C-alpha cells in the first residue's frame, strides 16, 4: 500500500514538471520524482506506517494517503522554486531585501543569522516546537501524569469523520468539481449575458457546496464516533455571524462617525472602547444583560412591558444570537478603528465628481467608498475570522458553557473542553490540528478569492 503511494508520488513528480514548470528536462524529471517520493515518505516513516497496518481502516488509509500527497506537493513546490532560481527567474522582487541583495553582507554569512537568532530561538521554543508536539500528541491517547500513552494512529481524527472512505473522497471531489465547473463557465461566458449571470449563481452554489461537503464528511456521532458535525455547524454559523455582524456594523458606524460632528473626536474614541475589553468580560456583561434571573434586559422587559423573555440558554437560536451579539460587539471597536483610518483614504475628488454627476448616497457608497476601503475589508476579514475562531472561548464559557446541549460549542470551545477540562490531551490536540488546517484553508481561500478583488490604489 505504501509502495503504491510512493509510485504515484514519483509519477506525480514527472507530471508536475511536465505541466507546471517552464523548462522540463530529464534531470529535472528525476529530481522532482525523487523530491515527491521523499516528501510523501516523511509522514509514513514518522508515524511508523501505522496508516497501512493490518488493523487500519479504510479511513486510516485515506488519511495516510492524504498526508503523503500533502508532503509530495510541498516538496514539489520547493523544487519548483529551485528550478525558477536556477533559471534566473524570481517571481516577486521583495521590496525589503532588494537593496541589500546587491551589496551582499559585508561582514560574513553568519552575521544575519546571529542577528536573527533571538527571534529564531523564540519562534522555535514557543511556536515550532509546540506545533510539532501538537502533531505528535494528536496521534496518541494520553493524559497528564499517566504512566504510559497509547499510539492510536489516525484514531483521534477518524472518529470525527464518517466511516465510509468512498464518501469521504467523493464529497470533496464533488465540491472541487463544482468550483472548477463554475470557474470554467465564468471564463466562457461574456460579461453582461444571461450565461454570465448563471455563472455568477453557479460560483456561489459551488462555494456553498464546500460547506455542504464538509458537513457531510463530519460524523453525526453514534457507533463509537464523536458527534463532530454539530460542532462544525455551530462553528460555521457563529463565526460567519460574528464576522458579518462585526464588519458590517463596524463599517456602518465608522461611516456615520466619520462625518464632521461636534465632539466627533470624543465620540470616535468612545466607539473604540469595547475593543479594550477582554472576551471574558464581554461574556460577563452580556450575561448580566440577558440572564433570565439577574439580567437587566429580562428584568426591564418584564417590569415595563410585561413580556416574559425566554431563557436564551434553552433555545439554540437565541443562545447563538447572544454569543454572536456579544462577540461582534467586542470586535466592533477594532473594526471601527480600522475603517475610520480606511475612510480617510477615500479620494474626495471622486466623491465630488460623483455628486456633480448626480449619484445617490448609496451609489457613492457602493461604487467609491466600498472599493476604496477594500484592502481594509480584506485585512479585517482575516483578523475577524481569526478572532471568531480562536477568541470566543471565554465569551461562550461565561454565557452558555455550550448550552443548550452543545449547540453553542464551537471548535475552540470543544478543544479546551476536551483537551484541558477533561484532560484528554490527544483528542484535544487532534481537534487543534483540525482547526489549524481549517484556518489555513480559509485563509488561502480568502487570498484566492477576495485577494483578487482588492484594489490597493496606486498608479
Amino acid at each position, binding site marked *: 500500500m505504501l509502495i503504491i503511494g510512493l509510485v504515484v508520488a514519483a509519477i506525480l513528480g514527472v507530471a508536475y514538471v511536465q505541466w507546471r514548470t517552464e523548462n522540463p528536462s530529464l534531470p529535472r524529471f528525476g529530481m522532482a520524482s525523487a523530491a515527491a517520493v521523499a516528501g510523501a515518505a516523511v509522514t509514513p516513516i514518522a508515524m511508523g506506517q501505522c496508516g497501512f497496518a493490518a488493523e487500519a481502516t479504510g479511513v486510516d488509509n485515506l488519511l495516510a494517503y492524504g498526508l503523503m500527497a500533502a508532503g509530495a506537493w510541498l516538496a514539489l513546490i520547493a523544487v519548483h522554486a529551485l528550478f525558477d532560481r536556477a533559471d534566473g527567474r524570481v517571481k516577486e522582487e521583495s521590496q525589503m531585501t532588494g537593496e541589500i541583495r546587491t551589496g551582499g553582507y559585508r561582514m560574513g554569512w553568519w552575521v544575519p543569522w546571529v542577528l536573527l537568532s533571538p527571534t529564531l530561538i523564540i519562534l522555535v521554543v514557543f511556536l515550532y516546537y509546540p506545533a510539532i508536539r501538537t502533531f505528535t500528541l494528536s496521534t496518541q*491517547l*494520553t*493524559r*497528564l*501524569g*499517566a*504512566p*504510559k*500513552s*497509547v499510539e492510536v494512529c489516525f484514531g483521534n481524527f477518524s472518529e470525527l469523520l464518517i466511516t465510509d472512505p468512498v464518501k469521504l473522497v467523493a464529497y470533496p471531489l464533488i465540491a472541487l468539481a463544482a468550483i472548477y465547473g463554475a470557474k470554467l463557465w465564468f471564463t466562457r461566458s461574456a460579461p453582461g449575458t444571461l450565461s454570465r449571470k448563471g455563472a455568477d449563481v453557479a460560483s456561489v452554489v459551488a462555494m456553498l457546496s464546500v460547506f455542504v461537503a464538509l458537513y457531510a464528511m463530519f460524523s453525526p456521532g*453514534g457507533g*463509537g464516533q464523536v458527534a463532530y458535525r454539530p460542532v462544525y455547524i455551530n462553528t460555521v454559523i457563529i463565526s460567519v455571524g460574528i464576522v458579518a455582524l462585526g464588519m458590517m456594523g463596524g463599517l456602518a458606524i465608522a461611516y456615520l462617525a466619520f462625518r464632521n460632528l461636534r465632539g466627533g473626536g470624543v465620540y470616535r474614541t468612545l466607539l473604540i472602547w469595547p475593543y479594550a475589553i477582554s472576551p471574558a468580560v464581554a461574556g460577563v456583561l452580556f450575561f448580566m444583560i440577558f*440572564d*433570565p*434571573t*439577574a439580567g437587566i434586559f429580562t428584568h426591564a422587559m418584564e417590569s415595563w412591558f410585561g413580556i416574559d423573555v425566554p*431563557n*436564551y*440558554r*434553552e433555545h439554540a437560536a437565541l443562545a447563538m444570537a447572544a454569543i454572536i451579539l456579544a462577540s461582534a460587539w467586542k470586535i466592533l471597536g477594532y473594526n471601527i478603528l480600522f475603517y475610520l483610518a480606511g475612510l480617510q483614504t477615500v479620494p474626495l475628488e471622486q466623491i465630488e465628481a460623483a455628486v456633480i454627476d448626480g449619484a445617490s448616497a448609496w451609489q457613492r457608497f457602493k461604487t467609491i467608498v466600498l472599493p476604496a476601503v477594500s484592502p481594509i475589508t480584506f485585512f479585517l476579514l482575516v483578523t475577524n475570522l481569526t478572532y471568531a475562531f480562536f477568541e470566543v472561548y471565554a465569551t461562550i464559557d461565561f454565557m*452558555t*458553557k*455550550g*448550552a*443548550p*446541549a*452543545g449547540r453553542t460549542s464551537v471548535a475552540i470551545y470543544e478543544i479546551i*473542553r476536551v483537551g*484541558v*477540562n*477533561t*484532560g*484528554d490531551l490527544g483528542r484535544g490536540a487532534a481537534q487543534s490540528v483540525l482547526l489549524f488546517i481549517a484556518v489555513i484553508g480559509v485563509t488561502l481561500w480568502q487570498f484566492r478569492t477576495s485577494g483578487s478583488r482588492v484594489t490597493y490604489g496606486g498608479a
Partner: protein
Amino acid sequence: MKYRLLAVLAAISLIVAACGSGDDDTTTTAAAGGGDDGGGTAAEVIDIDFWVAFSDEARLGFAEDRAAEFNTKHPEYNVKVTSFASYNDAFDAAVLAVDSGEPPGLIHFFEAATRQALDAVDEAGNPIFKSVTEAIGGRSEILGEPVVLDDVVSAARNYYTVDGSFYSMPWNTSSTVMFNNMDMLNAAGITEPPATWADVEAACEALAALPDGPSGCITWPNHSWFVEQSMGQVGELLANADNGRTGRATEAYLESDGMLEYLNWWKSLSDAGYYTYTGLQRDWDGTSNAYIAGEVAMLIYSSSDTTFFDENTDFTNVASFMPRNGDVPYVGNLIGGATIWMLDGMDSATEDGALAFMNFFSNPENAAAWHQLTGYIPITQAAVDLLESQGWYEESPNSKVASDQLAAAANTPASLGALLGNFVGIRDIITIAIEDILVNDLDVATRMATANEEANKSLTEYEQLFGN
C-alpha cells in the same frame, strides 16, 4: 565611531545594572527571611509550598491566615500558600512541577479525582503522592501538633480510604442539603420541609396554586454530584467493582433502574414547570441567585454555603436533608469536597513540617472556625464536640444538617460514592446528557444508553493508560 562607543557603553551599563539588581534581590530575601523567623539564620527555614484551589478571599484567606499562624508557631518552617483557579489547574501544575523537579509540598485536590491522584506518576513511574497515614506512621503528635487524622468523621474517612489506606487529609468536606424558603412554603400550607420526592411534588403543587407564588418551585445545579448523591440514597452503584472501591472500575452503570427513575422524576418536575433549569451546567451561582431572589422556594445545594444563605436571605431559611425517593429504603448520602495531598519525595524534616501543618490546619479550633465560616462540615469529632460545647448548633441549627445526614448514612459502596478514572470527563458526560434530556425533551433511557457507552469508552481508555 562615536556612536559605536556609546552603544558599547550602554550595553555594559545595562549588564552591570542587571547583575547589580540581582545582587540586591538576594540580599533583600535573606534579610526578610531573617526578620520573619525572629532572629534565626535564613538557611534553617524550610519552605513548604501549599497549593490551594480556592481564589475567593474568604476561603483562600482562611488558608493564608492559618499558614501565617503556623509559621509564627514554628519559625523553622515557612508554609507558603499559592492560589489556583481550579482543582484541575493546581493538579496539572503539580504534575508538571514534579517533572521539572520543583514540586510543592502539599496540594489541595477534589474528591472526584481521587483515583487520578492515586494513579498519577512522575516521569520515572513513581507515584506522585504519599499516603498521609503511612507518613504519620502511628505517631500521636508531630512537632508538638497533635495528630487529628484518626479523629476524622467516618463519612470522610471511608470515602478517602482506598485499599485500606487513608491517603489524604480531608479539608473542605460537605454534603448536599436542601434550603427551604419557609415563608413561601408556610403560605402554601406546608409546615415542614419536604423530605421525599412526593413531598416535593406536593409542595410544588401547593405553591403553584398560590395566586402570588414564585415563578418556579425548586432548583439545583445540573452537576453530576447531585446525581451521585441520589444514587447513594437509593443504593445504586455508578460502576462495577463496588463503585471502583474493591477493584478498578471498568464499566459504568449510567442506565441503571435507579438512575432512570431519578432522571425521569427530574424531567417530570421540569416538564411540570416546577424545576427551574438555569440553562447552564454546574451553575452554582445561577441557582443560588434564583433562591435568594425568591424565584424558587427550595434549593438543593452544597452545605458549604450554609453560612452564606443564613446571612444573605431575608426570609426564613431552613436547611433539611436532601429529598429522597420515599418508595425505596434510604441507604445514604455521600460527601463532596477536597483533601490535602502530600507529595512524595520530601526529606524527613520537610515532611514532618508538612504533616504538622496539616494536623494544625484541622485541629479542633481551626476545623470549627472553618465550619462556621462556610458550612463545610466540622471534619473531626473533636471539632463537633467543641462546637456543641460552644452552643453553636442551637444558635445555628442549619449548620448541623449536613453532619446529621452523613451520620445517618450506611457505610456501603453505593453511599460512599464512586472512585472512577476520568471521573471529571464522565461527570461531563452525565451533565451534558441531562441538559440534553431537559432542554430537548429526549427519552431518558435512550439518552442515558448513549451516555453509558461514552462513559464505558472513557473508563476503558483510562485503564489503557493507567491500568497495570
